[in-house]
């Protein structure tokens, strides 16, 4: 499991995270939700080591990640897969090269083994016959699926997804959510998803952490979130016309 212990982070006078503690469980989809500016992205970036928290620590299966030197973080990073908001696929590489990248960098597999693995993960994310296409030649939904394929190509133990549905139509968003959920169960990974999409919350929110003004305001799951009386959470959950109508 991933343990976030009392992390705080400020940028100048702006205190973005205040003493946040939580646990992300294995084999579950752990969601971080909250309004824009609530500190979701900073929390996610702290977890993956792109931002160093000012206080507190993050432990990956008892391994203290946030306090390690960059060189020592590498061992934990090899077990991580990250899906960035825009996909972050390498423009100069085609789909196959993008998915093969972690294998090239961190394994001693032969080319045929790597190709087998690439084709396997691409098939797993329901993409076939796109190996030679470049990121600019595929749709947004396909890009996300390629990014998921790249993230899982090296069998990570931890999968982090930053706004996996941003910029996607509702149907494709649902497909991506279902895919992440299936993969989490199948590979028994710890998946952490940063989102403000209520559809995702209700579809795959096995563990939900609600951030409000940099603090962990509420913890629960997709079954309890709609019944919760917490006013700040209610304001977030029922912020759209659709959810307000459902409530009525």
């Amino acid at each position: 499991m991933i343990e976030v212990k009392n992390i705080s982070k400020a940028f100048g006078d702006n205190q973005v995270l205040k003493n946040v503690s939580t646990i992300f469980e294995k084999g579950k989809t752990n969601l971080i939700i909250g309004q824009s500016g609530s500190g979701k992205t900073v929390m996610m970036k702290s977890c993956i080591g792109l931002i160093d928290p000012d206080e507190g620590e993050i432990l990956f299966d008892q391994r203290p990640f946030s306090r390690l030197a960059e060189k020592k973080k590498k061992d934990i990073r090899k077990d991580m897969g990250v899906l960035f908001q825009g996909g972050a696929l390498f423009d100069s590489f085609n789909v196959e090269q993008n998915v093969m990248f972690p294998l090239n960098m961190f394994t001693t597999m032969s080319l045929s083994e790597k190709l087998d693995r690439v084709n396997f993960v691409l098939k797993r994310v329901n993409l076939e016959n796109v190996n030679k296409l470049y990121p600019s030649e595929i749709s947004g939904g396909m890009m996300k699926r390629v990014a998921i394929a790249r993230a899982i190509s090296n069998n990570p133990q931890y999968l982090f997804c930053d706004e996996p549905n941003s910029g996607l139509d509702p149907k494709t968003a649902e497909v991506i959510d279902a895919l992440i959920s299936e993969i989490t169960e199948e590979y028994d990974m710890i998946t952490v998803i940063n989102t403000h999409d209520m559809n995702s919350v209700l579809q795959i929110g096995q563990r939900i952490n609600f951030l409000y003004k940099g603090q962990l305001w509420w913890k629960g799951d997709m079954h309890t979130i709609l019944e919760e009386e917490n006013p700040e959470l209610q304001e977030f959950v029922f912020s759209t016309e659709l959810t307000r109508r459902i409530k009525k």
Partner: protein
Amino acid sequence: MLKMLGEYLILLVEIFKRPDKGPVFRRRLLIEFVGLGIDSMGIVAIISIFTGAIVAIQTAYNIDSPLIPLSTVGFTTRQMMILEFSPTIISLILAGKVGSRIASEIGTMRVTEQIDALRVMGVNPANYLILPKITASMLFNPVLIVFSMGLGLCGGWLACIVTGLVTSTDFIMGLRSWFEPFTVTYAIIKTLVFAFIISSVSGYLGYSIKGGSVEVGEASTKAVVYSSILIIFFDLVLTQLLLT
């Protein structure tokens, strides 16, 4: 300015760490040879031929005195091409072509989170992205500069033949007169320094971008401006150190 210098030096330390994987580095180096070196041969060839021709014609035009031998045209063209034009002016042109390419390529990778993606995968992005560019520039730019010298002299010779201002024999005699091999060494030393400046400064400016597409454009422009200023400054320093 001091903050920038500090960041640049820290980045250099990251860049010159051992590559994560040798074969991956070599593959990227080959890609950069093509992108930064071979793709620049066309523009270098065109500019060198024409400049060689212009230098030869202008020199011939300015020789009024019958006491000055016409072979001076070949001699002057050679000295101009080797000492200054090929190493410095071609490096300034490469600062525009290659420098802006490096800054915008790396800058775009920064704003689209591709550099973050490399980092979270456990790859040293500075080393992975910039070291092959610096190595390729430092290995290939001397080739480009020698290529430019040769073509510039050919351009001068052709111009003399076509215009009839100087005979081929006079021009070649000038080319061969008082040749000092150290001038070529001096030109190559300058080229190596300039290649390092172009690739590392442009790489730094692309890598340190914060923002979006506007900042990518700004970094690209800054890469050309800063590299050009540094090239001129180090041209003066190296000339003073090596030729006096």
